[in-house]
């Protein structure tokens, strides 16, 4: 029977609001006096590719990227479909990366301006954080400003998404037949 000590495990990761932070990953136990350990998980995709690889949410666009597996004897239609999917993925990435950057920048500017106006500290000396009500103006303005952009994006995305369904179906059925013969 061992008695164990608690060990704190910290994970260095990127957080949207706080930048690089240490997160307590979870508690772990050790049989000696504990000390804080720090580990870092890699965001790189693995080298071996037997199947498609799905990534973690992208830091900038929040989208999960797929690394498509390239089979050895890839047919022309498979290749065309894969390239089309990669194209759509890149297009989505570009849009959301831009958009989220824009949001971050606009929010920063708004918060700075609002704090200049209201004062950076409360009367009792604590730091002022903007309340949701004070942020509401920003949310509204940002939404209204970007409305047309989103409508265009939405239309385009629906088109791409729906049009890629048919080749996907054709490929899937041909692969089923291939597997049977």
């Amino acid at each position: 029977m061992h008695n164990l000590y608690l060990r704190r495990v910290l994970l260095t990761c990127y957080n949207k609001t706080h930048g690089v932070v240490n997160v307590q990953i979870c508690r772990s136990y050790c049989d000696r006096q504990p000390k804080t350990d720090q580990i870092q998980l890699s965001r790189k995709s693995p080298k071996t590719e037997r199947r498609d690889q799905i990534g973690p949410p992208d830091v900038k666009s929040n989208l999960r990227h797929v690394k498509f597996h390239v089979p050895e004897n890839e047919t022309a239609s498979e290749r065309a479909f894969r390239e089309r999917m990669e194209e759509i993925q890149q297009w989505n990435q570009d849009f959301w990366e831009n958009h989220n950057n824009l949001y971050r920048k606009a929010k920063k500017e708004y918060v700075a301006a609002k704090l200049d106006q209201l004062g950076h500290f409360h009367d009792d000396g604590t730091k002022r954080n903007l309340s949701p009500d004070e942020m509401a103006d920003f949310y509204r303005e940002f939404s209204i400003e970007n409305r047309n952009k989103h409508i265009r994006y939405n239309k385009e995305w629906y088109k791409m998404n729906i049009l890629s369904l048919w080749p996907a179906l054709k490929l899937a059925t041909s692969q089923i037949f291939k597997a049977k013969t």
Partner: protein
Amino acid sequence: MVLRCGFRLPCWHLMKHTRLLHSKPTQKHNNVSVFKAVYRKFATKPSKGPGSVKPPIEVMKTSKVTSHDVTARELDHETIDVGLRVGEKQFQVTLENKDQDVSFFIPKTNDLITVKFKKADVVQNEVLENVAEVNVPHSQDKQNETSEKKEDDLTLDSIDERMWRERTQDWKKLPDIYMKLSKIRLTGLVVVTSMAGFGMAPAPFDPALFLLGSLGTALMSCSANATNQYLEVPFDSQMNRTKNRPIVRGSISPLHAMTFATVSGVTGFTILTCAVNPLTAALGTFNLLLYTCVYTPLKRMHIVNTWVGSIVGAIPPMMGWAACCGQLDPGAWLLGAILYAWQFPHFNALSWNLRADYSRGGYQMMSVINPDLCKRVAARYCVGMIGLCSIAPLADLTTWMFVIDSLPLNGYLAYLGYRFYRDADSKSSRKLFRFSLIHIPVLIILMLLSKKPHKQDTTIVKKSGIQENTVAKNQQLTLENTGEKSKS
């Protein structure tokens, strides 16, 4: 062979073994997810203002796991078979030569237990039992856990929020994925309201019809939700509330999801058309199209989407009614109106705390674009609910008893709606949202309890009785006629 039970860091080994555990078909306990990991924010960014520095306290929960046993046997020099008991659960794991430790993550208690094996003098096929038993200490810091800190928790449902992983199709997980794809809770609510519509309709209760109608409605709801998720992938990725949906996570392909949507939609439609009645099927199809083709894109276009979404919520009880008696009486419309009115306090309160996400994600939501209207509308419909429930007896839906016993329920809803209107903070909106979840099932139960006993039943029975008699007489006559004919 000496086995030593120690504990080590959840580094790459965790990832290796989690994959190992999942790729093993012999593993019996699929319900224990080793993939799950809850990350907790340890320290907030040190703030510059004076007096606001929070001590970096660990947020922890007391472990339920008090001990675990380790059994190990070495089959050959390449692999090692391990039987592990963690709490009440048992595992069979095969370890390769290089990796001689295995990690378990227990999601609810937030414990990571890593068992490390050290190789010593190996005796082939030796079986060791009850090798090690370990006391896992209880956390002492629980008192320091405040509600404020809980909100700060950075919760990850899965390790794949940090890591790449292979796309695999685990057939055992498919039912779970389908349930997520069809937003099982929402579908459940839809079915419950349609059952309520069926129960309230003034026609004799037919169990087979009831089950078929509910099944058809459920399937069409599944189809609508799956289509919605297929269309919304990049938008869903942006919001915390929706980023764990299966297509976003890559646990199911868009094609597979749409196949599911098509199959369930067509099956639901066929059931409703053939076994129930065309009116119900038409209502279901209308609702499916309204939800997927109008409401979903409208979210990016105009705040009117909330009203359209409320119509979508109002139709299921009318479908239930139509399934029962084949037509839409005033009672059906009133039932629809009650559900329509209910959507506003429910959704407006929900969207109030998601304003930042909605703004960033490109949604044109009432809570963002016009917060005053959002509060007003929610409060208005809360009060309107009292009015709608009061006229229920006039539409022959319920007895006057319902007006009285629904009053406290609706009164409290109206009070919370007023509080939301007055305070408009996250606390009041959350309260209103939570109560709206209790409100609708309780209201439905009250409604069913005080359903108006309908006299039509007996008249229908009498009428059909008369018809049967006449039919029987006619048959007798024809028989006699044919008999006479054959005689002549």
